[in-house]
């Protein structure tokens, strides 16, 4: 069964979505990621969706849920590299992902995470 890999980079977890998301896969990711945040005591999660070209309301809500769950587990989430078409679709669906931080690319996303985590006084 296919699975989305979760990489650990220091205090952060890196998730790169490179396949078409379907509902089962999204649920699996949600489970795996929450497990890993706890197991690795991660302080930040970076989700790269630059290869994601199709979203529906379910996937949109999953992204927003994952961010909320991570926050409960005391980890910041940054979503990076959203494609214009995906952004327009989400807005038209009424999902503007309030509370989810976004950045243009992985580079800027990591910078944002470091700022956030550093500001919270954790080294």
């Amino acid at each position, binding site marked *: 069964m296919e699975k989305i890999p979760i990489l650990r980079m220091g205090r952060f977890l890196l998730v790169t979505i490179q396949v078409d998301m379907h509902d089962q896969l999204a649920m699996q990711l949600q489970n795996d990621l929450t497990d890993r945040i706890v197991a690795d005591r991660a302080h930040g999660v970076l989700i790269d969706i630059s290869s994601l070209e199709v979203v529906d309301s379910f996937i949109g809500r999953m992204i927003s849920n994952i961010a909320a769950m991570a926050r409960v587990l005391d980890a910041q989430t940054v979503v990076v590299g959203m494609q214009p078409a995906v952004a327009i679709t989400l807005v038209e669906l009424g999902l*503007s992902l309030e509370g989810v931080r976004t950045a243009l690319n992985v580079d800027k996303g990591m910078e944002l995470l470091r700022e956030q985590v550093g500001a919270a006084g954790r080294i």
Partner: protein
Amino acid sequence: MPSATAALDRVLSNEQDILREWVRLQLAASSVHSDLIKENELREQSREFLSLFRDAVLKSAAFSTSGEEWAGVRDFLSKISRSRAVQGFTPSETATFVLSLKQPLFALLRRDLAKDAEALGEATWATTSVLDKIALYTTEVFLKSREEVISRQQHELLELSTPVVQLWEGILALPLIGTLDSARTQVVMESLLQAIVRTGAGLAIIDITGVPTVDTLVAQHLLKTVAAARLMGADCIISGIRPQIAQTIVHLGVDLSAVTTKATLADAFTLALRRINATVSLPTPKA
């Protein structure tokens, strides 16, 4: 062959007489537009139409928009209508091209069937109905080609009206001019988001100085654009809000509190520079 068509065909064999009279009538009717079309060009077009018309009448008496017998006439008329639409003729002038053929034809029919009033009536009716249909067809093609011109211009206008300019490394500006409707907002949104991807800019200033009115719909479109840009990781500043527009926005109860707004593009640019930690200073005057 029915007698009506036979008479029409007999009459049409006097091609030279008809042509002379017809061209004379057309020139008299459209004297205003003698600058748009030359007399010999008109004569040539009339001659070609007449010969095509005669061939078609021989094969099938009734004009049809799909029949093979009339394909030649239809193609020719489409060509003429299109070229006239582009040249700037009015629809009635274009229809007159066909309708003015009636008078010379009727005159000849009257002479041909002077003895037989019933046959004359029949032949006149047959001719009139076929020419009317052709004229209607011509007008239709004329309007269709005008519509094509309009829709092409609309498309061009849409592309022209949404430039995204780079003000600074990492700062984009989108000066909006003209009324925002759903179709335009879509184009504006797409070009802004694509520019964000292309330039990697983290800040975008949407300037609405040139937007004449802001109603709830326009405000909603703006908010959607801002939300989409935020999802991609870019912040938006809305600038160029005129005093009346500020009043309208508040009276309409539009909530712009989630967006940074500035009165002028200059203010917005200063803020954007501060956000990326850049400063611009004037040179200190020499003492």
